[in-house]
């Protein structure tokens, strides 16, 4: 894989400095931090080589644009207009004139430099505290030139981490189902793209219906449901080799798959004679284990990050509700008790929250609750939306939303949206086609 070539070399260590900058991430951020992203400077020789290699006129400006877009979408930062910048990028990178940057109200400044060294792209960047007049961080790394967008994502992650104290989520990818065609006969393909929608790639051709793809913890494998030969079964796909295989040998439909946090097992539902229960299959020794045994529908299982618990969806009370049990299936407890019915529970990577879909009075909500069911918070309401998936830092949810059609069945669309835990900062995640069933990868560079 490309990112194996990625070498992160830290040449300068973060300099300890008391910083005046603080980004409040605990509530809706109505005044995002003003930050200046100075275009990364490129010497003229490197510039020419990059232009030949990547067909990009100014790779430094392109990378800084990736950073800027990421910062905007986070909702926590407000990148300032470049036209107002007074200092040359190459000089700013060596010694910023802090008065100039303070003048345009920048509180943080990102500068950098890109060079071509032995056919590799080498980038160094610095983060500056404008008001304190100090360097907060300096990093450099080298990668293959075609990885230039990832360079922008990694820079964003480092800046985000330094300024918020949380890990980032920008150097990540989304796997989802690309949809086309009429609502009554949708063509669906697995697709993968960078978190910001670039580098989109289809992984299946659309010959058979595919649903609910989910990444393995190392992001090398995907588990999903395929209707290959009209037999709906859980499959495993190696993204690198393209090899697909059926998971287990079940005499009926298997669906709703997810990996265990150690990546060794797949947990899923198996439906037989009108009853769906939860099973796991060990990917090494192929041992299948039955986890629930109840005459109701048990589905949408999701492990806690330590692997000790499973949350799942069951209608054993008469309607869809969320339950938590130990990973061996014991100690089943219902945790959703609010008005309406609940589906698609997903355990947060931080372990503290469970995201869900709630249906109440004909409206659909994405929300979160603590793992004991307390503290329910609804983040967004719409005509139809479901299937939240967590960003690796547990701060943002991506989900899909479908629009209402008119009496002729016109006006249907399915799109990916993201919202952060504050319930503010709801954003459309742009995709070439209609899209559903998103699943967020873990950080690629960690």
């Amino acid at each position, binding site marked *: 894989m490309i990112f194996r070539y990625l070498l992160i070399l830290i040449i300068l260590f973060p300099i300890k400095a008391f910083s005046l900058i603080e980004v409040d991430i605990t509530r809706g951020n109505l005044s995002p931090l003003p930050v200046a992203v100075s275009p990364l400077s490129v010497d003229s020789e490197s510039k020419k080589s990059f232009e030949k290699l990547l067909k990009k006129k100014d790779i430094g400006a392109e990378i800084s644009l990736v950073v800027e877009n990421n910062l905007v979408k986070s909702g926590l930062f407000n990148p300032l207009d470049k036209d107002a910048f007074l200092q040359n990028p190459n000089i700013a990178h060596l010694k910023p004139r802090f008065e100039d940057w303070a003048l345009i109200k920048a509180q943080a400044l990102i500068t950098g430099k890109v060079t071509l060294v032995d056919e590799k792209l080498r980038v160094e960047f610095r983060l500056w505290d404008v008001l304190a007049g100090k360097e907060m961080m300096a990093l450099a790394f080298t990668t293959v030139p075609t990885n230039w967008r990832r360079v922008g994502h990694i820079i964003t992650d480092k800046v985000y981490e330094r300024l918020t104290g949380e890990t980032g989520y920008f150097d990540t990818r989304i796997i989802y189902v690309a949809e086309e065609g009429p609502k009554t006969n949708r063509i669906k393909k697995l697709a993968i793209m960078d978190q910001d929608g670039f580098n989109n790639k289809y992984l299946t051709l659309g010959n058979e219906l595919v649903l609910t793809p989910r990444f393995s913890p190392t992001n090398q494998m995907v588990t999903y449901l395929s209707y290959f030969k009209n037999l709906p079964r859980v499959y495993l796909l190696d993204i690198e080799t393209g090899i697909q295989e059926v998971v287990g040998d079940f005499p*009926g439909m298997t669906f709703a798959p997810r990996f265990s946090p150690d990546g060794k097992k797949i947990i899923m539902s198996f439906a037989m004679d009108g009853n769906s229960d939860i099973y796991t299959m060990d990917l090494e020794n192929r041992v299948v284990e039955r986890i629930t045994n109840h005459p109701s529908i048990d589905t949408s299982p999701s492990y806690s990050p330590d692997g000790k618990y499973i949350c799942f969806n069951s209608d054993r009370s008469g309607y869809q509700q969320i339950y938590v049990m130990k990973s061996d299936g014991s100690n089943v407890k219902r945790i959703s008790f609010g008005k309406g019915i609940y589906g698609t529970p997903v355990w947060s990577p931080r372990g503290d929250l469970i995201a869900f879909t709630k249906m109440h009075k004909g409206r659909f909500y994405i929300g979160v609750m603590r793992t004991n069911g307390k503290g329910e918070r609804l983040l967004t309401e719409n005509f139809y939306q479901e299937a939240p998936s967590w960003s690796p830092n547990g701060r943002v949810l991506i989900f899909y939303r479908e629009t209402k059609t008119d009496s002729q069945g016109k006006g249907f669309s399915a799109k990916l949206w993201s919202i952060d835990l504050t319930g503010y900062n709801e954003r459309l995640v742009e995709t070439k086609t209609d899209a559903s069933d998103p699943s967020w990868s873990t950080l690629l560079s960690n």
Partner: protein
Amino acid sequence: MNLIKILRSAFLVVLACLVLSACATKKVATMKQMQGDVYTGTDSVEYLADGVPDRVFFATNESILTTRSRDTLRKQAGWLRENSDVNVVLEGHADERGTREYNLALGERRANAAKDYLMTYGISSNRISVLSYGKERPVDSGSNPLAWSKNRRSVTVKAN
């Protein structure tokens, strides 16, 4: 002034009547095709043979067979007995107003309700297979209660 007032209120009355009657006719049309929220119309129904409808319909979130559904399935069982070389796939479906994974399970449950009924009327289980499509293959792409009722269904399809 008075005349204008009278005219205006008369106009409003007429308008209200029109709106109300329009609502009433629309409601009647929908009512005819639904009992509770189970579809009872024939718009989307196809026939396995003369007088043998291919599908049964369900209430929201339910997999219970209605009297009408049982009647349809008895006809199907009779037809299957007469055509003993025919195998069938029961395709279970849900409407778009539920989460995808739950709907897959619900479609499977609905198709199995139909399968069980056919079996009690003497059709061997190895002639019947079950396939759930969840909410993936609606027949009506509308977003309204009537469209949804047509989509909550189990369809008996010839497999050979």
